[in-house]
């Protein structure tokens, strides 16, 4: 069984971002980039399936400029077998990403496709769903557990009220939630091996996909600065302030 994992390069979750002075976007110059945490969980899940003898090959793909190869290598160091980069000048929006992944799915014919439920930069939470629509496959989003039985994937989903388990006929699409697993860290020997694993580069044009923008980013605002707190002397004073000043109770 072949597993395809699609991963995104995003800014590191530890980095404090600054908004550009003209508010056109966040400033990414010299910012440390990393593998999107949900994608890392997706890779880990695929690698575990391989270690359990269920998956036979784990292919990892990423879309974007050459720099995304860094994140593909990271995924290879975590245990994926080979990488595919779809080269684009900028980061395309979700629908284009889903179309590009759908093309790779057509070529690779994986039995399972795992994606992060969302990327921590744009927080869209839609690529997996769009991919399901484009490919006509079943989807198990917000997965906190994945089990493969015969020709089915049993996916436990984190829904508002609790947990829901769905059975998907393979090939299927899974998007990972935070509690699906705890990713390992890459070991030094595996980082070194990752450098020698195959990494194919294809262009969006080669795949016959035209990248189109459906939305336009108008402006970006930083969150409001936090006001300094005050210390209160007693519970009474706290209750009084919550009632009469903050007016929240």
């Amino acid at each position, binding site marked *: 069984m072949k597993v395809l994992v699609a991963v995104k390069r995003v800014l590191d979750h530890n980095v404090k971002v600054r908004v550009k002075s003209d508010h056109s976007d966040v400033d990414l110059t010299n910012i440390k980039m990393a593998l999107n945490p949900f994608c890392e969980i997706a890779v880990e899940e695929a690698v575990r399936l391989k270690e359990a003898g269920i998956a036979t090959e784990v292919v990892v793909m990423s879309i974007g400029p050459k720099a995304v190869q860094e994140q593909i290598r990271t995924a290879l160091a975590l245990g994926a077998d080979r990488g595919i980069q779809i080269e684009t000048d900028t980061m395309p929006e979700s629908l284009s990403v889903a179309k590009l992944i759908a093309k790779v799915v057509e070529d690779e014919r994986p039995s399972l496709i795992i994606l992060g439920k969302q990327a921590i930069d744009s927080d869209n939470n839609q690529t997996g769903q769009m991919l399901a629509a484009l490919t006509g496959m079943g989807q198990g989003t917000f997965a906190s557990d994945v089990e493969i039985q015969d020709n089915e994937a049993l996916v436990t989903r984190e829904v508002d009220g609790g947990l829901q388990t769905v059975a998907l006929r393979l090939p299927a699409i899974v998007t990972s939630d935070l509690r699906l697993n705890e990713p390992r860290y890459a070991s*030094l020997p595996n980082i070194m091996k990752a450098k020698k694993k195959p990494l194919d580069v294809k262009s969006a044009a080669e795949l016959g996909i035209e990248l189109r923008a459906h939305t336009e980013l108008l402006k970006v605002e930083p969150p409001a600065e936090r006001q300094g707190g005050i210390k209160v002397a007693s519970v009474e004073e706290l209750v009084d302030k919550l009632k009469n000043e903050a007016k929240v109770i």
Partner: protein
Amino acid sequence: MFQHDIDAINAIREGVRGLCENFDAAYWRQIDEVKGFPEDFVQALTEAGWLAAMIPEEFGGSGLGLSEASVILEEVNRCGGNSGTVHGQMYNMFTLLRHGSDEQKQKFLPKIAAGELRLQSMGVTEPTTGTDTTKIKTTAVRKGDKYVINGQKVWISRIQHSDLMILLARTTPLAEVTRKSEGMSIFLVDLEYAMANGMSVQPIANMVNHETNELFFDNLEIPADCLIGEEGKGFRYILDGLNAERTLIAAECIGDGRWFIEKASAYAREREVFGRPIGQNQGVQFPIAQAHIDVEAADLMRWRACHEYDNGIPAGASANMAKYLAAEASWKAANVCLQTHGGFGFACEYDVERKFRETRLYQVAPISTNLILSYVSEHLLELPRSF
């Protein structure tokens, strides 16, 4: 200027940082508070293969150069940790690797690479001779197929967390050798066996939460095949590994320096006194800027040392100078960081005082600043030897 595989170096940085994220400031603070040893951290680093970076692939390591290895220790310190707890495992094997017999290498290196055997300790320093190493009084006398060890060592680190130690002892009395650097030998000592057969260990309480000890040898008999290389050449073997060790220590200091500067800058941007950030005062920002320049300059010398070492070019000058510059720079950065934090720098929860203590060590150990100046004077400037 110096050619390195930048992609590999970046991947290593990322990898070490990823691991270090799980051992945050609170972890190190707690270890320091209870004067503990970061066993989980050492275990994780070992299991992920980081400490076997320089062991050749044929023995189960990654066979990397000093450049890559130095980045590993740099990043540990850069992330707020203390490489002093692990660097021994990375470099104590140099003497074994370069001078051990094939049999010794086959027997020990794969286990060291796998983390099954810890070679964390090296016993050189003695209480009565200090830096004047050739005067060491610990002796190893050949008796049949054994050596009998007597004497005393001090400041021998990580003994309680190691399985093996490289020990330097005199095998020919000083009076009987033509050159004082001759007549010393190194041995690979099994610590568990030694502790049961005549070696006693006395921990030394100290300022940096370093697990370090006094050792007493009372007729400790060890098998003769513990000898590494030829008898009498041990001092030269030890010197042989020093360029790599100095460069690794320099990299640790660079990591510390960067940690201090980032911490100082962040605090100077945020702390407001007199209605503005303290970092707006040149009296606060200039010392941080100076420390930054010093760290970056030292880093260049560190990369020169790595480049020379990895390309088989004699690296004595650059390795010594890198260690000197980096230890000076990290200490300066530590001092600036503490000063920038004002009173809060003294509060344990800011981690500055801990790192301040830790980085101060590198002015003294494994080699003191004065001895590097002596080296440069004598070997590079052809000035008369002062001792």
